[in-house]
C-alpha cells in the first residue's frame, strides 16, 4: 500500500483522515520495534557491562586499595557524577571527533560516555554492598589460607553482588532513560532519534505532522516504559533465582 493513495482517497472525510493518520502512525511505530529498540538495547547493554566491570574495580580499590589509589577513585566518581549525561555524550561524540579527530562509531561513543558515568554510580553501589558483607567473612576466608584476591573472588563478591541487585536495578532504570540523550548523535537511530526522524519524514512527505507529534512521542515513551519495567522484572527474577536463605535485601527508592 502506498502512503499516498490513502492521502488522496481518504482525505475528504474526517473518518478517512483519521484512518490514514492511524496508518501513518503505524508506519512510524514499526521501525521503532525493528530498528530503534535493538539500538537502544545495544547501547544499554554495552554501557552497563562497561559500568559493571569498571565500577567493580573502582569499588574494590576503594575498599581494599592503598590510599593514593583510593583517592584516584574518589576523584573519578566525583567528576563523572558531576557532569550531565548529555554533556559527556557531546564530549565523546563531537568533542573527540572535532578536536582530536577520533571518530568513534555512534553506539560506541554513547556507550562509552554513559558507561564511564554509570561506573561512577555502580562503584558506589558495589562499595556499599562489599562493606555490607560482614568482616568475619574475609577473616574466615583468610584463616583457611586463601589469598586476599581469592577471598574477594570466592567469598566477598558472590555475596556483595547478590546484595547489589536491588540498587543495581535502579541504576538500570536510570541508564535506560539516559540513552535517550544519545539522540544528539547523528545517524544513531535509537528510539528517541528514530521517533524524531519519523516525525520529520511524516510532515515532509504527507504535510501532516504537528498533531501526530504527541502520539508518536507517547509511543516512544511507552517503549522506554516497557524497557524499564521489563528489565526490572528480569532483574527481580534473577534476584529470586539467586536468592539464598539469610540474604535479606532492602529495596530503596533511588533515581
Amino acid at each position: 500500500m502506498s502512503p499516498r493513495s490513502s492521502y488522496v482517497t481518504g482525505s475528504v472525510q474526517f473518518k478517512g483522515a483519521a484512518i490514514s493518520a492511524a496508518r501513518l502512525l503505524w508506519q512510524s511505530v514499526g521501525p521503532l520495534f525493528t530498528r530503534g529498540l535493538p539500538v537502544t538495547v545495544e547501547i544499554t547493554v554495552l554501557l552497563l557491562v562497561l559500568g559493571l566491570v569498571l565500577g567493580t574495580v573502582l569499588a574494590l580499590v576503594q575498599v581494599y586499595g592503598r590510599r593514593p589509589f583510593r583517592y584516584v577513585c574518589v576523584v573519578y566518581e566525583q567528576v563523572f557524577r558531576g557532569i550531565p549525561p548529555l554533556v559527556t555524550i557531546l564530549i565523546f561524540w563531537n568533542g573527540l571527533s572535532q578536536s582530536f579527530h577520533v571518530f568513534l562509531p555512534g553506539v560506541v561513543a554513547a556507550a562509552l560516555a554513559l558507561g564511564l558515568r554509570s561506573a561512577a554510580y555502580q562503584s558506589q553501589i558495589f562499595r556499599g554492598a562489599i562493606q555490607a558483607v560482614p568482616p568475619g567473612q574475609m577473616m574466615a576466608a583468610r584463616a583457611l589460607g586463601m589469598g586476599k584476591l581469592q577471598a574477594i573472588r570466592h567469598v566477598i563478591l558472590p555475596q556483595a553482588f547478590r546484595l547489589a541487585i536491588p540498587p543495581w536495578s535502579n541504576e538500570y532504570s536510570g541508564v535506560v532513560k539516559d540513552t535517550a540523550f544519545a539522540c544528539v548523535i547523528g545517524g544513531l537511530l535509537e528510539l528517541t532519534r528514530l521517533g524524531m526522524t519519523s516525525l520529520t519524514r511524516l510532515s515532509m512527505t504527507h504535510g501532516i505532522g504537528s498533531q501526530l507529534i504527541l502520539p508518536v512521542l507517547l509511543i516512544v515513551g511507552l517503549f522506554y516504559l516497557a524497557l524499564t519495567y521489563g528489565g526490572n522484572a528480569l532483574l527481580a527474577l534473577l534476584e529470586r533465582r539467586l536468592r539464598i536463605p539469610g540474604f535479606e535485601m532492602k529495596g530503596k527508592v533511588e533515581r
Partner: protein
Amino acid sequence: MAAGTRTGPSDVILRVEGLHKRYGKDEVLKGVSLELRRGETKVVIGPSGTGKSTLLRCINQLSVPDKGRVWLEDVEITHARTNINHARAQIGFVFQDFNLFAHLTALDNVTLGLVKVKKMSKKEAVVRARDELARVGLAEKAASYPAELSGGQKQRVSIARALAMDPKLILFDEPTSALDPELIGEVLEVMVQLARGGMTMIVVSHEMGFARAVADRIIFMEGGVILEEGTPAELFTCPRCERTGQFLRKITELYGETNGR
C-alpha cells in the same frame, strides 16, 4: 601432664615467643610466650579483654603482632618471606561467631578451602567434606545454608570446615560464647572427641567443665600476659596465684561446671 610424658623437642608444633600487640593506646599483648606439643590441648582462660582472642589471631597472623615470633614446627610464620597463606592452611581457626560463608551451603563451606587452597578436585573435596560433616554429626545438613542452621550446628560446620583442611592444630576462639546455653553441649561434645582423638588445639573458653575434662594444661591470662600455666589439677585445686583462684571461683559460680563432662 599426659602430653609431657611423651614429648621430645621435635614434638613441639607451635612456639610463640614474646608477642606484643597494641591497638592504638591499648597494649593488648605484653609479651606472651607459649609452646604447644603434638596432641596437646591447651585451654586459655581469663577475664574478658585480656588479649586471649588477640593472642589466637596473632598466631595465624590475622592480626599482625607488633613484636615477637611464631613458629609452626620449624617454619617461622612471622618471617616476612614465609607464605602466610600456606601456613594458615595448616592452622585451623574456629571463630566465636562462626563466620560461615553466608552464600554457600554447609557442604560448600567445607569444600571451598579444599578446592581453592588445597587445589583438590571438586569430587574429592565433596567426599572429604561429607566425611567431616558426618564426623560432627551433620551429614544430613549438607545442603542447608548457614541461615537455616542453629547456632550449635553452624559452629559444628565451622569445625568441620577447619578439620577438612587437615590442620596441624586448631585454634578455637571462644567457640561457645555466642551460643544459647542449650546448644553449647553439642559443640563441646565434638571438641571433647577431637581432644581425645589426639588433635592439637588451643581453646579460648570460659567452659571450666570442658577445661577440667580435656585440657592438658590451662593458661590463665590477664592484662596481656600469662599469669599462670599448669595442669587442671594444679590450677583448680591449689592456685599459686591469688588472681587465678579468684577468677576460677567466680567463673564457676557464673557458668557452673555442668557442661562438657
